[in-house]
């Protein structure tokens, strides 16, 4: 009996507040927009019995999905989200790997401190961290002031409200997600493997390329997914740092819902985003599983 309660309480909670809402989203994505409250038809009408249910299903169609393919705003937004997420992921890897490597090579007594410094931003507000770049990247911001002062540029660079600012924002906020799995992989790396490689005639650089990189592969893959997946549906960064021409699907969905009040289209956008996300999520799961198996 107790066991039943133990399972049932969290189970029912998640069913009602996680699974059922998705079914609703899916259902509304098949509905039509209407000037009503709620702003879509058909609504399920149990009072008229079977007739109501049949009318309800008859009213559902894939029109919203067809609409998404006809208006090029949407597929451009999907493509541009994928592109921005992919570029940011690569940039995060380039920035994060040397840091993770440096941490793994650091003297033992330094490591807890470095670790804490990586984790600390996790606990500070995401919104504030994104916001902090607004003052730096704006036309009269610190970066431009600094570059003008050094004389590298004579005209302020336009960075804020461009895709570049979005890349910087994503790399900045998701960097710990990239660093931690790579660090975890590099930390386990046995130094004597590198010594053995050098002993067998590798230069340090080839030893790094032939030993360190392959042995940290799982960490790199995990880190990339941990950046790519949330970046794809990102809303805050493109709306604060990106410009009007920055198209990201999270932003489109938000605006479709709140500004245009087109719930069925917003729902259809969400369903497609979910379908796109399933691929990297499944790949990520498989990577994690492989790692667990490798560790026994």
């Amino acid at each position, binding site marked *: 009996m107790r066991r039943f309660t133990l*399972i049932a309480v969290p189970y029912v909670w*998640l069913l009602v507040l996680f699974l059922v809402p998705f079914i609703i989203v899916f259902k509304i994505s098949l509905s039509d927009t209407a000037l009503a409250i709620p702003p879509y038809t058909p609504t399920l009408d149990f009072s008229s019995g079977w007739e109501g249910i049949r009318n309800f299903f008859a009213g559902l169609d894939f029109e919203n999905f067809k609409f998404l393919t006809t208006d090029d705003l949407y597929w451009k937004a999907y493509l541009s989200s994928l592109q921005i997420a992919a570029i940011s992921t690569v940039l995060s890897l380039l920035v994060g790997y040397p*840091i993770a490597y*440096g941490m793994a090579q650091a003297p033992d007594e330094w490591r807890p401190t470095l670790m804490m410094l990586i984790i600390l*931003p996790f606990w500070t507000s995401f*919104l504030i961290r994104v916001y*902090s770049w607004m003052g730096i990247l*704006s036309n009269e911001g610190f970066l431009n002031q600094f570059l003008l002062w050094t004389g590298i540029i004579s005209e302020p660079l336009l960075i804020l409200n461009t895709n570049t600012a979005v890349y910087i924002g994503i790399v900045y906020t998701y960097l710990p997600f990239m660093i931690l799995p790579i660090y975890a992989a590099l930390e386990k790396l046995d130094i004597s493997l590198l010594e053995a490689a050098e002993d067998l005639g590798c230069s340090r650089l080839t030893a790094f390329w032939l030993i360190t990189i392959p042995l940290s592969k799982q960490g790199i893959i995990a880190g990339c997914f941990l950046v790519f997946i949330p970046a794809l549906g990102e809303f805050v960064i493109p709306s604060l740092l990106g410009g009007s021409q920055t198209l990201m699907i999270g932003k489109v969905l938000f605006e479709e819902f709140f500004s245009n009040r087109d*719930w069925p289209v917003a729902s259809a956008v969400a369903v497609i985003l979910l379908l796109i996300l399933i691929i990297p*999520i499944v790949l990520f799961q498989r990577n994690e599983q492989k790692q667990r198996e490798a560790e026994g």
Partner: protein
Amino acid sequence: MRRFSWFNATSLTIGFLFLYLPMVILIIYSFNESKLVTVWAGFSTKWYGELFQNQAFLDAAWVTVKVAVLSSTIASVLGTMAAYVLVRGGRFRGRTLFSGMIYAPLVMPEVITGLSLLLLFIGIGLDRGVLTIVLAHTTFSMCYVSVVVSSRLVSFDRSLEEAALDLGCSPFEAFRLVTLPIIAPAVISGWLLAFTLSLDDLVIASFTAGPSSTTLPIKIFSAVRLGVSPEINALSTIMISIVTVGVISASLLSKRALVRQKREERAAEQTAD
């Protein structure tokens, strides 16, 4: 003894400058006299004063804390239950769906979670307000709690529970007297995680909040959309300071406890029998 190589020292320095410089600049300029956020016009704490005069911010802060305390507490209970079911529950019908529902919210874009919950609340005719935000936050943060707690439960020596049963505990007593006190640190860090997630959340709260229940992130977002504001700098500084003090003292405390335990263990081995 390993030392920093030239290369590693450089990459770490640049890396940490990148991570911390924006926040440091933000903090410095929160003490700027000028309204123009990029021009330094002398030291002042006037924006802090104005912040505490701003009733709208204070109200939003109160709503946020209320939501965070409630949702993280419920999430800790539900998340611990879910973790126990996942790790110790054995087989039951629908287990795969259950573990799927635990892990899915971790990777779900916030816009989708927010949208779907809003549509649910409208569908069942629940007025948007503190209650709906609490329900929404509890749902996604219980998953984080259950991940934290289940990773502790996995490394938990099962024979401790069996010993409790063997010594006459009912399964529930074994959980209350043995399992719970031992996993308590994990439950507490789960609670803290849920608490900060709730404090931080903008997107889901935007979907599920009503007009009378604006949270601080919503307030900050609508303020900074228009550009950098010195008041927000002051508010950010306060929030960053609280977190920094919290994280540093927590890590110092746990380090001290670990060192003491190590020392006691060594001492115990030396004075054997």
